[in-house]
């Protein structure tokens, strides 16, 4: 089985289990408040880490390149309340243009 398929299986099983956790396993209960706070923070934490690696990540080194321009362009698009896909397109376009120019 290729690497991709293993990830498909692991993420699929975990996400299915998480979605069923309330309705099938535990019923309508609350997580303990502190645990809930940690679970709630997982999303912004992981997303921020992904922004950093996607923008500055190299082969075990930090790189400053055209991607920064793309991310900046996306930030402006997001501030202007553009749809996520529009922000992605803007980032890709800006990055590609810088790569063409440099």
């Amino acid at each position, binding site marked *: 089985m*290729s690497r991709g398929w293993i*990830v*498909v299986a692991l993420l699929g099983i975990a996400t299915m289990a998480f*979605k069923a956790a309330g309705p099938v396993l535990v019923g309508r*209960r609350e997580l303990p408040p502190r645990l809930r706070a940690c679970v709630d923070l997982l999303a912004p934490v992981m997303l921020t880490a992904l922004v950093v690696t996607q923008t500055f*990540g190299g082969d*075990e080194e930090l790189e400053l390149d055209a991607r920064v321009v793309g991310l900046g362009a996306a930030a402006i698009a997001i501030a202007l309340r553009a749809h996520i896909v529009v922000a992605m397109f803007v*980032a890709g376009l800006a990055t590609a243009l810088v790569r063409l120019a440099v």
Partner: protein
Amino acid sequence: MPDSPPRPRIRDGVRIAIPLAPSPILFGLAFGVLAADASGFGSLAAVVMSATTFSGAGQFASVSVLDAGGTVVAASLAGIFLSARYIAISMTIASIFPGGRLRRFAESQVIVDESWALSGRSGRFEWPILVGSGAFFYVLWVVSTAIGTVLGGVLGNPNALGLDAAFAALFLALAVPYLRDRRGVQAAALAAAITLALVPVAPAGVPIVAASAACLVGLRR
């Protein structure tokens, strides 16, 4: 008998979800285009992932870590940590599901951020709205992913077109709504610091997994 609002039906859930249709369609197309071309992935894997995981953020996270050369474990954990929020979300609506365990399991799979939000729009969670809107989004998501993988083949190599920055933009856009309160900003800043510190010294994927520790900011009162 006093007038009470009519009980919504599943078709009401579909109707309410229609204005939000562009989101799963565009997002699904983008996932199909990007995932089909990611290293270690392919068109079929992309569609199967959409059909089984049905959660945009987690799917994009796992695929991007894999594409960056991360290990299978790191790629899986990145997506799994993002999906963890469904534990809390599914617990808030656990009591609206009728029937036996198998049926509840099947119907719980249409829980996504949007169907969950729509189902609670009247102030209490409504099962027909959740299932109607969620099933509608599910079909759009899987079909759009499939179409995206075909489009990706036509477009050629999206990496040359700034794929990496498009991923970054996606994660930034998804993160912004969480950064409205101080603790969210603190946790995000800590995560960024951990990631920046580890990228030069650790293999791809490891910095992301290590950054998950920043969620422990939530332990502070």
